[in-house]
């Protein structure tokens, strides 16, 4: 898309939340005040260490973990990779079997593929039509040689909340550590306890990009899959991004406080979208669990429409949304999440509302969507009749 989106409604909070104002001031202040190496012993360095430790305590308090369980990584993806590969490495003598849900984030599945290429074994547990893992099926996948099990707190594409508490209970009974990728939940909703590893990403709660969190429960064995490095209690290599971390802590506290009031409002707006889209647009399927879901996220698929064309049209109308349809991804495959659920993968739109999303913008979205879908359906049918492919038709669009 050559033209940037006109100022309009940003409905892609699941990709990244707009920066929280609290993050900006914390970032600038810390860049000036705490740039020294926190591993050194002179005054400015010790000052930076104090600032870093204080930020760690603040994040730990919001997440309900101990400060010494928490490490800052360079991204949510890095936190996931370290949790999966480090968790597996620590239990290599127990076995090399890994359990994941089929709808985990690609960072988890890519780590699982790496494990498989290195000779490990992976079991992917399927989901029902709403994208939810069956806790009994998850428990049944655990074996005596299972080194690690992974279950997301909630799905990033359809918003369905996973049975983490039940999975944690069966993992505890089987003596298998559980990794919970909570990137979509942290700051928005509480994550059940019982996990051994927890990962998240600051830019999903209004913090800056380049900061992730990895929590390793006290007493859990973990071994770095990377070369030795003394930073972050030997868990994460490289010089700490102290300004980013402090900004992430400030954003998390503020975001969490904002969400106490805003999450119920966003949930009501999502309920409205879930009810109105199928009422106003024919041949639409709304995906995901209608009740056990994240407050801010809804996904639906419009039959006979190409996902990318719909995104482009909505962008033109001033709406920033995302899609799990194959043509919008950089590969030929459709979303592995929609595929695992067995729901329509084309014409897919994910709406995820940021903090403070305006009711008026949601109203305008609901008003504009039917026309956008109807226009594209008309185009699709006419190109089909003239024998031109839809791809050609799309390229010729202004």
């Amino acid at each position, binding site marked *: 898309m050559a033209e940037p989106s006109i100022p309009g409604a940003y409905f892609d909070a699941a990709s990244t939340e707009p920066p929280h104002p609290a993050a900006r001031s914390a970032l600038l202040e810390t860049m000036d005040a705490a740039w020294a190496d926190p591993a050194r012993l002179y005054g400015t360095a010790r000052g930076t260490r104090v600032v870093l430790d204080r930020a760690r305590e603040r994040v730990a308090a919001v997440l309900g973990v101990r400060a010494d369980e928490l490490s800052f990584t360079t991204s949510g993806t890095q936190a996931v990779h370290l949790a999966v590969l480090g968790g597996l490495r620590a239990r290599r003598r127990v076995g090399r079997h890994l359990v994941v849900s089929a709808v985990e984030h690609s960072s988890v*599945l*890519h780590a699982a593929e790496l494990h498989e290429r290195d000779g490990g074994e992976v079991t992917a547990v399927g989901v029902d039509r709403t994208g939810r893992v069956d806790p009994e099926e998850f428990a049944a996948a655990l074996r005596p040689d299972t080194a690690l099990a992974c279950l997301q707190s909630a799905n990033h594409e359809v918003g369905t909340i996973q049975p983490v508490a039940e999975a944690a209970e069966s993992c505890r009974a089987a003596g298998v550590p559980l990794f919970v990728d909570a990137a979509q939940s942290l700051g928005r909703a509480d994550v059940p306890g019982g996990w051994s590893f927890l990962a998240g990403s600051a830019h999903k709660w209004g913090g800056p990009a380049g900061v992730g969190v990895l929590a390793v429960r006290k007493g859990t064995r973990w071994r770095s899959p990377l070369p030795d490095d003394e930073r972050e209690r030997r868990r994460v290599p490289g010089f700490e991004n102290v300004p980013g971390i402090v900004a992430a802590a400030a954003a998390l506290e503020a975001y969490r406080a904002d969400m106490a009031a805003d999450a119920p409002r966003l949930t009501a707006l999502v309920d409205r979208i879930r009810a109105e889209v199928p009422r106003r647009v024919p041949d639409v*399927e709304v995906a995901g669990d209608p009740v056990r879901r994240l407050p801010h996220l809804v996904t639906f698929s419009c039959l*006979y429409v190409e996902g990318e064309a719909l995104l482009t049209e909505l962008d033109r109308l001033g709406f920033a949304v995302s899609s799990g349809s194959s043509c919008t991804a950089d590969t*030929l*495959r*459709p979303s592995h999440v929609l595929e695992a659920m067995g729901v329509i993968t084309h014409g897919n739109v994910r709406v995820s509302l940021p903090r403070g999303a305006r009711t008026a913008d949601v109203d305008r979205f609901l008003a504009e969507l039917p026309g956008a879908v109807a226009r594209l359906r008309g185009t699709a049918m006419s190109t*089909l009749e003239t024998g031109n492919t839809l*791809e050609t038709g799309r390229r010729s669009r202004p």
Partner: protein
Amino acid sequence: MRFRGRGKGATSPEAAPPPAEPAGPPPALAIDALGRKCPIPIIMLAERIREVPVGQIIAVLADDAAARTDVPAWCRMKSQEFVWEETLPQGGWGFHIRRMY
């Protein structure tokens, strides 16, 4: 393990088991959507299912991997009966659908 981060969809050799025995009656109509990306195979199916009598089979040939999810999901949404999927020797799949109404 298989998800969209890897693999080449229809052309992937792992997706080509030995040809199965027909798991249903022969189709009254076969639509060729090979080389067409979703949603085109679904649009063609929706437009042409009325050309077969109720109770008869229409087959869609497609090699976009998305069709493996989208054809059964379309049948569920539209209350048509998805009968079976065959793997084509030249790559791609044949999806057999019974017109229910």
